[in-house]
């Protein structure tokens, strides 16, 4: 998904910059009066993409003609034509100045750094583990049991709603047991718990292809005291992003 939206942004930027290419020379201040016989320099610069998220990269490309001395403010002297990758932390305008025997020319390109993700509906690319865990809650089980309790149905419904709103997310359903009893039996019981939670989500409309079960038996404990409160915490089916 990430790759797709990046590609989209890149082609959008390309369209914009192509348009800009034609506009900017017109908008540029008129060149200084030409010196006798020497042709006036020209300069263009583009940034691709022209909008990035914080931490992202953009590539500057520039071309000049009839120039002997080319520089970009902030980057210093550069070749008469070339490309350079930049990683600005805030919106930055790159100012290219080309000097030649026939005068000078300049051009600018602006890289906009998006302060926050676009305010459109959230996409999978910006759902991280924490956001997922906050939205998709575990369900808890009775001692030596793997039936979804009545009090867990609300949780399952909420979990299913979230997953149905994000149909491209794949999920690991982990089954967990408290510390008591046989190692091997608890792994089998944990599988039953994971599978019970998976079936409940499927019943609530989530495609089974998106759900993978793993039993952790009593190998991973969330709470390590030897109390019933703790054991209850550990008897669960929990959901994590399948990455």
């Amino acid at each position, binding site marked *: 998904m990430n790759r797709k939206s990046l590609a989209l942004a890149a082609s959008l930027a390309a369209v914009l910059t192509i348009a800009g290419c034609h506009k900017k020379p017109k908008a540029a201040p008129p060149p200084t009066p030409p010196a006798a016989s020497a042709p006036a320099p020209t300069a263009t610069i583009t940034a691709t993409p022209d909008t990035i998220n914080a931490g992202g990269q953009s590539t500057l490309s520039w071309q000049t003609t009839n120039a002997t001395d080319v520089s970009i403010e902030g980057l210093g002297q550069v070749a008469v034509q070339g490309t350079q990758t930049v990683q600005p932390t805030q919106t930055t305008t790159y100012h290219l100045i080309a000097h030649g025997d026939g005068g000078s020319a300049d051009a600018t390109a602006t890289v906009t750094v998006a302060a926050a993700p676009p305010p459109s509906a959230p996409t999978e690319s910006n759902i991280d583990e924490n956001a997922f865990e906050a939205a998709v809650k575990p369900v808890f089980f009775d001692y030596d049991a793997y039936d979804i309790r009545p009090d867990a149905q609300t949780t399952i419904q909420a979990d299913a709603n979230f997953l149905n709103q994000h149909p491209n997310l794949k999920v690991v359903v982990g089954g967990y047991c408290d510390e008591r*009893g*046989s*190692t*091997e*039996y608890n792994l089998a*019981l944990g599988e*039953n718990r994971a599978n019970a939670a998976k079936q409940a989500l499927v019943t609530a409309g989530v495609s089974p292809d998106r759900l993978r079960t793993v039993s952790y038996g009593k190998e991973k404990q969330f709470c390590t005291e030897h109390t019933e409160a703790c054991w209850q915490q550990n008897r669960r089916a929990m959901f994590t992003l399948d990455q």
Partner: protein
Amino acid sequence: MIESLPKKLDTVRLFLLVALIASAIVFQAQLQAQDWVRTGTGLGVQKIRIAAADVKAASADPQTAPMKSVFDQTLYNDLRYAGIFDVVSKSMIPNTTPGSPQEINLANWAAEPSNAAYVAFGALAVNGGRVTVQGYLYDTHAAQNPQVLGKQYADNASVENTREIAHRFADEIIERLGGTPGIAETKIYYVSERSGNKEIWVMDYDGMNERQLTHLRTVSLSPRVSPDNSRVAFSSLGRSGWSIRMYSLDLGRLVAFPAWGDTTLSPAWSSDGTKLAFSSARTGDPDIYVCDASGENAHRITAFRGPDVSPTWNPKTNAQIAWVSGRTKLPQIYIMDSDGANVMRMTDGGYASAPSWSPNGQFLTFAWNRSYGPGAPGGEDIYIMNIATKAWVQLTHDSGMNDAPSWSPDGRHIVFQRAMGGGNEIWMMLADGTDQQQLTHGGGNTQPNWSWK
């Protein structure tokens, strides 16, 4: 060179052991409320009084003393752990180290306080990097023809090889006097967390020579060595869940084995090495499957809703499998034919798990908490059950959480895990619950599996 002891006597003794286990269990069945009644394999069987003389140092090489010390200690422990001997305390034996038949005065060993019926003695030498042991077993009351065993062993001089020689000599003695092969050369496979992850480890049966086999840095459990000692099957948590992995002891590395995913657990070898039983949840519900040793031709033999796990074959016939099922909620031990027919529940309640089938096919050992439940004080103990009568005997008492028992190949011993206060350690005991010995010390050690030979 080797005088054979009357075989008939051995057979009678073996028969007596089995008969006494059986009668002890019947007796216990009538007294199940009284946990502490002393029952089991040792009852009424006179243990053979045997003495082990320290071997004579027969070389000047500086390695002689350390090798002799290893040999003496190992042989003494092997005889003590064997379960059929009353080993004369070192403080009661004659203060001599006879190195050869010419140097032993049998009357001294037969007399008070030693009172030995048999005496093991011999000589150890280290020459040119080789250790050589002459070992003898003499009957102290057969003045005319006292030699029962006379053996010579040689190997490169190392602590490990010297210990191995002592084990081999002990096993000769045990087989000659006890009628069945000893266990001094056997190994115990187990899970240890001391590297920071649960990995598969192996040690000698006496807890010495611990070595880490796997380095998977995930969670590896349930090691089961093949009957020919060539491979260890175990279950391991990978990216796609639990699958059975196969470690080659010949190659010292993992070898290919089909990975089904789907929470595939708890492999168990048939005693002929041709089949594996295991638990898999490929239908979404854990059931028992059987496949070829190669992993091919897997087919399901149970179809109960709920956990089905921890299979173990009847090693005498390979026609039956015992396993743990949660089909009636709390896990119970069941047996069935190896095609899934004739299911019979063995335990009558509580929380029963981790069955291991005795080599003679007559008994199960398993972990049982008879008053398990929310709020119940957790006391989990090792039991044995006579399969024919379902009569059971409790082997451990008031000693923490005891789990994952595994029979020794001689049927006289059980190895198990025990957590008493701290972490789990591996212990062994005689199959009547006596002579409990702690084998590991620290790091979290569980799920022992005794090799087949």
